[in-house]
């Protein structure tokens, strides 16, 4: 009696100690996730990054100033002039409401942080939450050890860091947390069968729908998992409780979000869930009848029920197909279609294809973004199959689908990252489990305890903790290779732990081998940590509105964007309209507080095409287009002087394509010489005379006398020219932003009277007038 009591108490203390340790580790992981994202604040300053975050920041400012009701009804007349934009109904409000709530909460505690500070730090805070959610999800799948490993991996996975550094105030920042948390609650409901978790699950799904358009991933992944469970004969009543309430509540809640609205029941992205909803009811009925009937009678019933069920299903499928076929785009939005058919966007929608994050990723970007996890995933998948449960089936399905989606669109690498972390966490934790157990088993002094300790997770947690803290940087690709071969020989050994008492002896590896394997694993993880820190510090923390470059004579800071926007806000009239390519729309409204023609919310293709046409037209035609839009200033971004590659000349072909898609007189071949895009003396006359070329290179020859473009690495084709319809009003210090003013009309008339040589251009403009004028 006493003999059995003592180990029991020992185990109890050990468990308590383990959970305290787990809590501490989780806390540290949260701190790690938060602080690894602060490089941008330390290296630069606490600013909002890039393009979209500026819009979110502006919306948050409006929300905190005017309250939630004004926010819902906000009609923004400072963008998309003269159309305007209904912000409240076209924005995913999750992020703004989150930051707004945070702001109000802090102010109710008398902590006077500015809106900007709250916005900057929202993403790091939520990435800490996301790693805790990963812990919970992986714990449901494979236990505490795997959960902690996965959480630690997620806290610093570069793919996620790229979207959630401090200042990167974008939807994905909170959406990834919502995504993982929704999956956790789904698995939790599946494991417990509790309706309480089902309710929480649909609420968390609601938060996800509020936050990001990627919610369609959830509403397609979960039905697929349910279907897979049914097909493989894993149906249980817990599956029903996890799925059926989620569909009903989730659909209703999603329809509450204005930007989704009735799309939640009208578009094809959501139909899969309804179809599976019907199927699960049929299956539930079959299982119920099977339960109450004798096997013989059930055979008879099966024929009846299956035939009726099939008939019902066929009818439903017919209805759905009819619905889908009746809608013009077959019910799919362009973005989703480009997911299924990766070539769709580039063929039909240049505006989607023009965004770099919608392009398919390259192979190096996988290594850059998930690093060693890419090699651990296969091991994790194998570990999920031994033993296979509903939850681990979900993990496998998640990784398979997200690998496919990430292959279609760079942006969706973000969805892959949590899956990769979960599976690698499982793989690493299982590997440590096996190795540390066989080490412990063979240490003579500890051999008495090893039977009880073997399955105690705390041992591997300690190892994991060490791996995080040791920053040994000795790893080479060679060692990774040996690691992988090691992994292969280890897989078969991983199965036994379920029946540990007898088979334990079989799972013991040689002492030296396991020591070496553990050291190699630690090195592998150390390599991952080093890579992540490097990625966070160097690759992903540039705010892209402040640029830096290192050269022989030290560090250069290019703060031209803010210089230009500040100039606009101080030197122009409040109601002046500024035209630029749509990338700079959000920044202009947020930083310069001026009305723009188009911005990054690409809801009106024609309007963007109009601006694209103006940029690719000759000066006079462009002046007329801009004048008809009441534009007073034109802003172009030019990188030729300092070698900033993502400037307007490099984006110019997209302007031509998008403009040409709506106004056919703009033809892409006119701008290409033998299929090559060039701006040197071999360039076509159309190219050398278009507005974008002139605005970018006006007076450029005065800088160095040769007009050498450092981005294109060539001398420009046409060096000396004068502007007739535009005048330069401001050029920033490094020439990165150039602002021009439209000359008033009377100048144009006088110029026309003096030299009537511009006959050709006037005929083209008059031809265009018929097609272009009608919208206004």
């Amino acid at each position, binding site marked *: 009696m006493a003999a059995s009591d003592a180990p029991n108490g020992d185990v109890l203390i050990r468990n308590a100690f383990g959970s305290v340790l787990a809590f501490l580790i989780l806390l540290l992981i949260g701190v790690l996730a938060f602080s690894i994202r602060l490089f941008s604040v330390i290296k630069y300053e606490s600013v909002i990054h890039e393009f979209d975050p500026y819009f979110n920041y502006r919306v948050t400012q409006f929300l905190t100033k005017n309250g939630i009701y004004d926010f819902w009804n906000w009609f923004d007349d400072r963008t998309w002039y003269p159309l305007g934009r209904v912000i409240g109904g076209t924005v995913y409000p999750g992020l703004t409401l989150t930051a707004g709530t945070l702001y109000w909460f802090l102010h109710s505690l008398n902590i006077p942080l500015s809106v900007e500070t709250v916005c900057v730090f929202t993403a790091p805070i939520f990435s800490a939450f996301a790693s805790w959610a990963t812990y919970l999800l992986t714990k449901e799948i494979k236990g505490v050890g795997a959960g902690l490993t996965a959480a630690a991996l997620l806290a610093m996975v570069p793919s996620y860091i790229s979207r959630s550094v401090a200042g990167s105030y974008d939807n994905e920042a909170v959406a990834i947390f919502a995504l993982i948390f929704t999956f956790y609650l789904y698995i939790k409901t599946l494991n417990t*069968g509790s309706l309480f978790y089902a309710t929480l699950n649909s609420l968390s799904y609601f938060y996800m729908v509020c936050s990001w358009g990627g919610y369609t991933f959830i509403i397609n992944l979960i039905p697929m998992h349910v279907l897979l469970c049914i097909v493989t004969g894993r149906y*249980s009543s817990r599956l*029903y409780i996890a799925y059926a*309430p989620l569909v009903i*509540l989730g659909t209703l*809640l999603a*329809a509450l979000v204005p930007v989704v609205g009735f799309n939640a029941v009208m578009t094809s992205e959501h139909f899969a869930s309804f179809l599976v909803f019907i199927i699960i009811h049929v299956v539930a009925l079959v299982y119920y*009848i099977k339960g*109450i009937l004798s096997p013989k009678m059930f055979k*008879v019933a099966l024929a009846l029920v299956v035939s009726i069920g099939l008939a019902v299903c066929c009818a439903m499928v017919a209805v759905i197909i009819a619905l889908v076929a009746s809608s013009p785009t077959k019910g799919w939005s362009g973005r989703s279609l480009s997911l299924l058919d990766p070539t769709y966007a580039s063929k039909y929608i240049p505006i989607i294809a023009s965004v770099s994050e919608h392009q398919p990723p390259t192979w190096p970007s996988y290594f850059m973004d998930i690093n060693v996890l890419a090699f651990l995933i296969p091991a994790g998948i194998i570990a999920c199959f031994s033993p296979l449960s509903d939850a681990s089936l979900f993990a496998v399905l998640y990784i398979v689908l997200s690998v496919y989606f990430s292959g279609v669109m760079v942006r969706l690498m973000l969805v892959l990252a949590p899956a990769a972390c979960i599976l690698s966490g499982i793989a690493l934790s299982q590997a440590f489990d096996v190795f540390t157990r066989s080490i412990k088993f063979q240490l003579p002094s500890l051999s008495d305890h090893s039977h009880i300790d073997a399955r105690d997770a705390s041992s591997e947690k300690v190892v994991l903790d060490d791996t995080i803290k040791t920053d040994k940087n000795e790893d080479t690709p060679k060692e990774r290779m040996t690691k992988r071969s090691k992994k292969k020989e280890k897989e078969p050994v991983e199965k036994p732990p379920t029946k540990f008492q007898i088979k334990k002896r079989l799972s013991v590896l040689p002492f030296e081998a396991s020591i070496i394997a553990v050291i190699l694993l630690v090195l592998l993880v150390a390599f991952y940590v080093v890579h992540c820190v490097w990625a966070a510090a160097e690759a992903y923390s540039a705010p892209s509105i402040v640029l830096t470059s290192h050269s022989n004579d030290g560090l250069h800071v290019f703060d031209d964007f803010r210089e230009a926007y500040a100039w606009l806000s101080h030197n122009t009239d409040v109601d002046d309209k500024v035209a630029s390519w749509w990338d700079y729309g959000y920044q202009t409204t947020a930083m310069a507080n001026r009305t723009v023609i188009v911005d990054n919310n690409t809801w009106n293709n024609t309007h963007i095409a109009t601006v694209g046409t103006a940029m690719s037209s000759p000066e006079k035609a462009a002046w007329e287009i801009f004048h008809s839009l009441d534009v007073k200033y034109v802003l172009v971004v030019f990188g030729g002087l300092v070698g900033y590659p993502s400037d307007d000349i490099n984006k110019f072909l997209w302007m031509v394509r998008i403009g040409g898609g709506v106004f056919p007189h703009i033809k892409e071949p006119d701008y290409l010489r033998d299929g090559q895009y060039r701006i040197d003396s071999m360039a076509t006359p159309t190219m050398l005379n278009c507005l974008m070329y002139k605005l970018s290179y006006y007076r450029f020859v005065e800088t160095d006398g040769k007009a050498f473009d450092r981005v294109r690495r060539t001398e420009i084709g046409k060096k000396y020219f004068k502007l007739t319809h535009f005048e330069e009003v401001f050029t920033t210090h490094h020439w990165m932003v150039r602002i021009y003013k439209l000359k008033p009309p009377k100048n144009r008339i006088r110029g026309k009277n003096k030299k009537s040589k511009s006959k050709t251009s006037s005929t083209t403009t008059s031809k265009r007038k018929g097609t272009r004028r009608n919208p206004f």
Partner: protein
Amino acid sequence: MARSTSKDAQDLFRALWSAYSATPTNLKIIDLYVMYAVFTALIQVVYMAMVGSFPFNSFLSGVLSCVGTAVLAVCLRIQVNKENKEFKDLAPERAFADFVLCNLVLHLVIMNFLG
């Protein structure tokens, strides 16, 4: 052939009926409730088919509230059914509390939708 099928069907229904009448009364009450909810949903769908779905939010909230109630009741039934071994350690009181909570959320949303 037809005769044997109909005989089989008769046997089947008899067996079903006898098996079903053995279920406890509280489960039968839940079943009635589910039937009623589904029936209401069907009436609404038929009405929509005849009159049209113009205030689409009303239609949506009406039908989904019925279907949702039915689904939640089925979940409750699964949980309180004594024959389901999976839910042995779930007290019926707890199951009912969860059911009420879920219904509350459902109908709060529905009320937002009535318009």
